[in-house]
């Protein structure tokens, strides 16, 4: 029940939520203001935080004219009330503050503007008082008034001095007179709140991340590789052994190679971008030139290495002519030799992926199907440590800005970010996918990564958050097998089962192309506003809202229920057993089975 009814409330009251209960879970906020709040807050459990509007109310020390047009009932009351005389045009000194810098303080205000005095217009002129007009105050002396010195008469008049508003040259910025005195801006917080809300809404409105789909493969896309020197070039290997090179700016395929028989298991480019390597199901490693063959020549690899076993993955060293393959064991190859310069193995299971550390380049990480992640040191030709997780890890990716951080994409729907120096606890467990995570790639800034999942979606996770900030999916995109973040950190590519490579924006609502400085400023401001007010429920809800395909949505619900049940059971078990007998294991530690030295 609200009282007074909305149509009777003064515009001021309706504009701002009433200064609500000051009781708080954390602490009552304004003790002095709301007389009994301190005791009441302690007694009752309700709590709330300051709304922007409220805080504005608090800041405001004096009543001020409402910013909104008065409601019909209140308008006459305001106008005719006994206090209507108190309503004054903006004071001269306030105006002077506006122009504070420009004006010479010594100069008496009246002298300049004496010619403009129009006594009768004083009452109304206030309305017309825009930026260029200002109030000057004239103190009349005894020569004016018959009463003499005893009664000094104040005359307010408009003064208009071009110096104050005309810029000197056309190239100058327009002068915008502005008074930053906080007392004059009582509603700054609510206004910013509204702006933040609008920015959030607009972000959702403009969130159109999908850019292009590159079609041409005749089977599912199994692997992707970036060109190290050229942003526009992307390589992809398909399940039918075909390798294609794409031009992203033109969005077309510029070269097609039938590289292998069977799957192209892995593809990687040389650090200089002159050639690339592929491994396939036909137990071969092939090196190809990046530029196509001349007219009439046949597509032939530069080198071909015939191996004994199937290679499942390949990665190239970041600085030297060395690459690593994985299969039964991790082999490190010199480009010029047909035998590996060293083979490292630890355990006897097939290794699905191997990755060089981009910073400390002698480090390698691999993951095998016996659920473990093994780290190797190439210089000492020895494995370093092994961590065994609950389920199999599909790939790992090193953070390109933090030497010892890597993220593992796991079958148990989660991603685990590890500090390789402390493998027993992951730094962060990233969960949001509802099916096995198949691939992961870091943004070159090292702040975020993208993951591809069997649940037909890709998600973007901030490195330090356990929940994703973004999910991309389209109706036609099937299980996403591989994903890459482009080297300028602006785009994301993903290759999926249904033979397409899709190009996405990394920031869904980002405007592409060149921004003017004003656009840039607005963008930055909006971004900061969103950040500032991100905890407000309304804004949070809008910012987090995503449309999801029904399958994912229902899966999420289902898994939530399962998780809740599991949690409940655990809690019950702890509750009903001897204290201390059931250890409380944190979510991070739960998934690590063992660390083997």
């Amino acid at each position: 029940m609200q009282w007074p009814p909305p149509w009777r409330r003064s515009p001021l009251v309706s504009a701002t939520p009433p200064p609500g209960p000051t009781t708080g879970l954390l602490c009552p906020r304004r003790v002095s203001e709301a007389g009994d709040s301190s005791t009441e807050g302690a007694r009752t459990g309700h709590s709330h935080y300051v709304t922007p509007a409220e805080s504005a109310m608090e800041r405001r020390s004096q009543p001020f004219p409402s910013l909104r047009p008065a409601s019909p009932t209140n308008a006459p009351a305001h106008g005719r009330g006994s206090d209507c005389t108190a309503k004054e045009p903006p004071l001269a000194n306030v105006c002077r503050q506006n122009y504070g810098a420009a004006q010479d303080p010594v100069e008496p205000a009246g002298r300049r503007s004496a010619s403009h005095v129009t006594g009768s217009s004083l009452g109304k002129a206030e309305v017309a008082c825009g930026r260029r007009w200002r109030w000057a105050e004239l103190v009349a002396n005894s020569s004016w008034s018959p009463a003499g010195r005893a009664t000094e008469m104040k005359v307010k008049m408009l003064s208009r001095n071009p110096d104050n508003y005309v810029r000197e040259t056309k190239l100058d910025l327009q002068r915008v007179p502005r008074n930053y005195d906080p007392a004059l801006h009582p509603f700054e917080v609510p206004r910013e709140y509204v702006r933040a809300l609008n920015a959030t809404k607009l972000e959702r409105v403009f969130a159109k991340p999908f850019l292009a789909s590159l079609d041409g493969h005749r089977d599912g896309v199994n692997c992707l590789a970036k060109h190290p020197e050229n942003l526009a070039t992307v390589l992809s290997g398909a399940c039918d052994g075909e390798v294609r090179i794409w031009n992203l700016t033109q969005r077309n395929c510029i070269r097609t190679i039938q590289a292998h028989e069977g799957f192209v298991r892995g593809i990687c480019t040389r650090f200089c971008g002159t050639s690339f390597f592929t491994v396939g199901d036909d137990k071969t490693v092939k090196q190809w030139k990046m530029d196509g063959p001349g007219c009439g020549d046949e597509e032939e690899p530069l080198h071909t290495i015939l191996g004994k076993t199937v290679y499942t993955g390949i990665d190239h060293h970041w600085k030297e002519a060395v690459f690593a393959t994985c299969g039964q064991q991790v082999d490190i190859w010199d480009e010029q030799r047909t035998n590996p310069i060293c083979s490292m193995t630890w355990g006897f299971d097939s290794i699905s992926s191997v990755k060089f550390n981009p910073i400390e380049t002698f480090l390698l990480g691999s993951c095998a199907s016996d659920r473990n992640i093994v780290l190797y040191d190439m210089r000492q030709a020895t494995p370093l440590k092994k961590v065994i997780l609950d389920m199999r890890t599909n790939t790992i990716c090193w953070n390109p800005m933090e030497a010892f951080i890597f993220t593992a994409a796991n079958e148990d729907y989660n991603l685990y970010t590890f500090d390789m120096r402390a493998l027993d606890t992951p730094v962060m467990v990233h969960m949001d996918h509802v099916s096995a995570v198949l691939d992961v790639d870091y943004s070159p800034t090292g702040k975020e990564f993208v993951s591809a999942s069997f649940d037909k979606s890709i998600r973007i996770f901030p490195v330090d958050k356990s929940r994703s900030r973004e999910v991309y999916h389209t109706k036609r995109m099937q299980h996403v097998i591989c994903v890459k973040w482009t080297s300028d950190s602006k785009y994301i590519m993903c290759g999926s089962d249904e033979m397409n490579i899709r190009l996405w924006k990394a920031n869904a609502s980002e405007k592409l192309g060149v921004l003017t400085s004003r656009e840039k400023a607005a963008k930055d401001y909006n971004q900061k506003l969103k950040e500032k007010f991100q905890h407000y429920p309304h804004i949070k809800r809008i910012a987090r809202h995503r449309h999801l395909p029904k399958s994912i949505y229902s899966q999420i619900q289902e898994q939530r229920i399962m998780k809740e049940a599991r949690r409940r059971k655990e809690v019950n078990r702890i509750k009903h057993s001897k204290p201390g007998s059931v250890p409380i294991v944190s979510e991070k530690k739960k998934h690590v089975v063992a660390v083997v030295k």
Partner: protein
Amino acid sequence: MNVNQVAENLALSHQEELVDLPKNYPLSENEDEGDSDGERKHQKLLEAISSLDGKNRRKLAERSEASLKVSEFSVSSEGSGEKLVLADLLEPVKTSSSLATIKKQLNRVKSKKVVELPLNKEKIEQIHREVAFSKTSQVLSKWDPIILKNQQAEQLVFPLGKEQPAIAPIEHALSGWKARTPLEQEIFNLLHKNKQPVTDPLLTPMEKASLQAMSLEEAKMHRAELQRARALQSYYEAKARKEKKIKSKKYHRVVKKGKAKKALKEFEQLQKVNPTVALEEMEKIENARMMERMSLKHQNSGKWAKSKAIMAKYDLEARQAMQEQLAQNKELTQKLQVASESEEEEGGTEVEELLVPHVVNEVQMNVDGPNPWMFRSCTSDTKEAATQEDPEQLPELAAHEVSASGAEERPVAEEEILLREFEERQSLRKRSELNQDAEPASSQETKDSSSQEVLSELRALSQKLKEKHQSRKQKASSEGTVPQVQREEPAPEEAEPLLLQRSERVQTLEELEELGKEDCFQNKELPRPVLEGQQSERTPNNRPDAPKEKKEKEQLINLQNFLTTQSPSMRSLAVPTIIEELEDEEERDQRQMIKEAFAGDDVIRDFLKEKREAVEASKPKDVDLTLPGWGEWGGVGLKPSAKKRRQFLIKAPEGPPRKDKNLPNVIISEKRNIHAAAHQVQVLPYPFTHHRQFERTIQTPIGSTWNTQRAFQKLTTPKVVTKPGHIIKPIKAEDVGYQSSSRSDLPVIQRNPKRITTRHNKEEKL
């Protein structure tokens, strides 16, 4: 296999290397076979013999199949449990003297330490891994500060290792450019006249010259100058010190006058030049003067006060005047305490009251009604009297409690005043006592004790009546403690003669009881007797030749002594030694004490009051929309007609019943506005540790509407900036100023350095 055996094997192998064993020593394999066959038979025989013996002989293992390791020299110890010792092997060697060198060598080998068995492969690998891991971790740890820095950076601009944009030096720009227009030429002329630098070092030749010009002589001169300045300064300081030490008043007066004159002159000058500033100055001076005056007022330092102080020894009036002045000073200089109604404040003052010296409390008891602490001391002091009085006193106390709770809101200032008054009085009293001591005894000596007996009895009766009346008054007057004090003030003067006389006839027990009662009352009312009592305890009790007044006092104290001697254990409050008879009394006391200590805070009533207020506050209010003077006459003293008021008064509807309507002990706030709640943060967000922090961040606007352009730009700098179209490479050790951890990561290269060159050649080709 144990270690010894291994050692022997080793020794054997050495032997093998070192020497050609004598030809006759090693046996052929065939022979060995045959020999072993015979041996087996022999052993069987031995076994049979031992079994005949019946004793548990050591069984020797039988070798049933061919050994894997068959020694060349048929010295295998397998089959027999015995160990092979080097000495056994050397026995044949001993005979031949030609093998002395070999013997020596063998001995040397024997003396050598045993080499440990190598670890198994897994273990070795694990150790390797652990070492490698720790080393790698160490290498990686050097990135920690960089990563931390990047995480905390206000802004990160990618790509990180940005090369400095090559700014062409100005001379380059100038070289290909000539001044053509007259204006440009003019500017150039100007520039060249000053020899403005066009090249990199931003100093003009003049400046450079001046910088370089300081020669040795100049430096010396500079130093001398500095020295002189220092010396002057020290002289000046010394002079100032000396002047300060001068005691001559005249000198100072002259100086002061001179200064004043100078200031005046300056002021006049200022007045002429800039009247407004002068006015301000004037005001300032005036203010300073006023401040000084205010602070100095009523201090004992004035001329008048000093003279009074001298006179005070002899003149009562002067003394009083001085006291007054001091009181005034105290009153004026005392900090103003804002009278607040909150309970906490009052509680605070109560605590303060407890903290003030005990003597103060004694008087306060009189003044404020029952003070539990004082009361207790009183009762315990006069045991019998207290026991008798208790029933009387309890209701009285209760009454006081009620009154106290009623007069809760008594401003604190009053108490302060009381305190001050008390202090004054006390000091006065002390002084007067001293005086009285000094006064000749003859002043009141003349009173005849016997003739006064009857009179005193009468007076005692009347006094009792009076006192009863007074106590009733006390009960009645709950507020207005000050008047009470005033009322009580004459009491000492009244009581004094009575006390004096009463003290003479404390002989009979019946009267003693009575006296006890009275004494208690007096104790309560007057601090004086108690004090005097304390004082007189020091003085010898029975001194007949003492001055009359003193004697009288003593007698009074005697009385007390008499009482206390009856129950010496009760004298000290802190250490009650006899308990058994007083236990329940003590309990009661305790209860009373607690009751009285918390007499001020009536929690329940407060809560009810609070709840009532909350209910009132939450009730919807009527809206009055009447406009005075609208449609009728208006003006001062004219009120809108009742009809109009009725017409424009919008009655608030009854709200829904409160949730805590039937819960007397609960206040449920219903202020929470669900419409506002949608826009309110319910839980403190993560990085913040206090809600105030969060509020502060929210309340700082970042928009350009409220900030200057620069501040706005600073506030809105994005955390990560990437340049479109630029490839962001992984961070490199060289970028952040580290040596790359290794020139080459390859393990192989060290092994065959030849290949490096070829590889590089190949790379170039690629």
